[in-house]
């Protein structure tokens, strides 16, 4: 009965794991989610002392991960932009998956944010008493608006489900909504552009933190633009990576080699541009911005844990090298190279977010202060685990019951044919 129902909801022509296996998978993640939900409850009901954050590390694991997942979630807006505005038809193969990933990343970030601010009940104050000068106000506005847009973009994917499409006017609404999708793609691009930037600006404007402070254009520090660039460089890589991961886990082929190639090519080009800009920015900052504020560059890198190697790894190992691998067609044609480079690109962006958040917090500003370390409490890990579990669950259900990869059906048929031929 249940299995028949399950089967009726699965899109036609694709193969999905047996219901029991799927149930186990879901159960596993529900367990992770439950632990994290308990940790979140502790933080919300009892106080933030459950985290290992303190007056020095006011932002802990969560801000680093928020920034990271939002950067990786940038694939959603960038793919939408490329597909609907620049008409890159190849990306139709991944747009649905990208939208779901974006939705997960953004909603997950919002959940974590709600847990890790002290007074989540006052979240609406930002709308009530907005400070136009605050990057965080801009981020709040953009992210909430963009989350709404992502939800709207998710609706057509949902309504196209085999069962839902049969209900009343769902398809009609989907049809009408789809006709207007370019509007959402444009709004999403605008919003994403600004809040990716604002997240970068978040730290770039901290004039009291010379390690993070950057000069820039008008009201935006250079990190504003670097964040946008790095996010759109890593976004397609992240989509390629997740798609590959889903392929491995579900043991299906989901997109064509051309789609991988397109994603990698775009990622590579953007990454090269980013590395160039980042290098210029770093040189300017080390030689001009920081010394002018009384902090010669060596002061940032004389602390044992955070040597100059972070800079080298971030820009060269996890920036330049994957960039080169991805723009060179013969190299990226090799799947392992492509995946390794995509992974490195994502890791580079992650490291960049880490440096800008955790390292900024760690480095002392007062000359008589010292470096302090921080290790998150289990509650912080668990809360993040819950968000990951939430993401996996949403994605798993979406993948099982919705059409995330339009090419999958064709690829599956070819594969099934081949297999039965071999048999």
């Amino acid at each position: 009965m249940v299995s028949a129902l399950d089967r009726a909801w699965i899109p036609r022509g694709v193969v999905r794991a047996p219901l029991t296996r799927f149930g186990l998978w879901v159960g596993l993640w529900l367990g992770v989610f439950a632990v994290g939900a308990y940790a979140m409850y502790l933080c919300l009901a009892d106080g933030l002392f459950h985290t290992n954050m303190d007056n020095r590390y006011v932002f802990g694991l969560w801000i680093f991960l928020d920034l990271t997942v939002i950067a990786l979630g940038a694939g959603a807006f960038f793919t939408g932009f490329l597909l609907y505005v620049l008409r890159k038809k190849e990306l139709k193969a991944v747009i649905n998956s990208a939208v779901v990933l974006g939705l997960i990343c953004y909603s997950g970030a919002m959940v974590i944010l709600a847990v890790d601010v002290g007074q989540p009940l006052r979240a609406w104050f930002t709308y009530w008493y907005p400070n136009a000068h605050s990057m965080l106000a801009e981020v709040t506005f953009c992210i909430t608006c963009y989350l709404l847009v992502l939800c709207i973009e998710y609706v057509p994917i949902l309504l196209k489900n085999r069962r839902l499409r049969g209900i009343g006017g769902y398809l009609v609404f989907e049809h009408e909504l789809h006709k207007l999708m370019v509007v959402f793609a444009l709004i999403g691009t605008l919003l994403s552009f600004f809040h990716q930037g604002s997240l970068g600006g978040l730290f770039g404007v901290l004039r009291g933190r010379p390690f993070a402070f950057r000069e820039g254009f008008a009201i935006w520090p250079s990190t504003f633009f670097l964040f946008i660039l790095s996010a759109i460089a890593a976004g397609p890589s992240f989509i390629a990576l997740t798609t590959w991961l889903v392929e491995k886990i579900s043991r299906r082929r989901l997109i064509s080699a051309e789609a991988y190639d397109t994603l990698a090519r775009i990622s590579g080009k953007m990454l090269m541009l980013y590395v160039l800009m980042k290098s210029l920015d770093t040189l300017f900052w080390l030689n001009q911005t920081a010394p002018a504020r009384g902090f010669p560059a060596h002061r940032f890198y004389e602390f044992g844990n955070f040597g100059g190697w972070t800079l080298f790894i971030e820009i060269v190992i996890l920036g330049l090298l994957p960039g080169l691998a991805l723009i060179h067609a013969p190299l990226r044609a090799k799947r392992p190279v492509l995946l390794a480079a995509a992974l490195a690109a994502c890791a580079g962006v992650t490291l960049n977010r880490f440096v800008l958040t955790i390292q900024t917090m760690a480095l002392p500003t007062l000359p008589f202060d010292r470096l302090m370390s921080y290790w998150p409490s289990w509650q912080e890990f668990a809360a993040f685990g819950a968000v990951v579990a939430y993401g996996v669950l949403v994605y798993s259900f979406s993948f099982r019951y919705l059409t995330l990869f339009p090419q999958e059906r064709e690829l599956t048929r070819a594969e099934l044919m081949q297999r039965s031929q071999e048999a």
Partner: protein
Amino acid sequence: MTRRATPGKAARYGMIIDLDRCNGCGACMIACAVENNVPPPDAKATPRTGLNWVRVFRVETATRPAFVPVMCMQCGDETPCVSVCPQNAVDVDPSTGVVGQIPERCLGCRYCMAACPYQARVFNWRDPQWPAGMEQALNPNVSARQRGTVEKCNFCHGRWHAAVEAAANEGKTGSVSYTPACVEACPAQAIEFGDLNDAAFAAKARAAGAFRLLEPLGTGPKVYYRTGRAEVRGAVSGLIEEAKNGQRS
């Protein structure tokens, strides 16, 4: 965002702290906590989660250590915390120059804490708790803050308010003079409080030997420090040349 200035002459309150006088007894910290209803530490509090509006750093130097009380510097020119607060819970009162924190409006995002180079801001990681009955001994002029909000030194806003009221009762407006708790408490009289718009006080703040913390950041702190010891100046001021001078001497 912006508050209407009190009619009459506005003040720019500031402090001058004599590092050669401070002996690090901590009276300012305790007096501040009493005045501003800062709760006692809970069982698991550490220097990193503690609630102190003023903290006295012990700074090792080539000779004997110096003690540096660090409270909110009430930055003036480019206040790092005011511009970052997403919902205007931090403001600068144009009539006093004091950076105010509105705990009732605070979201607890702690962005202002990240922005502050002086670590003058603290967060209520848990509900404030006093031993049973001790809440009777709280200062009636300052309300307790909830968990999940940021707080910091406001140059004893409660005392300022009382002084303004007293002055108003006498029919006076404009800048009033009052004494913050730490200034009153300091047994060594190391802290001097005054109005930087007052020429005599301003001159003292700019006298030789006076400096501000992390001056090149351009935050324009209104708390000045003073020392006659070059090694202390080198270790505390954060000025590169000073640090070199301090090492030489």
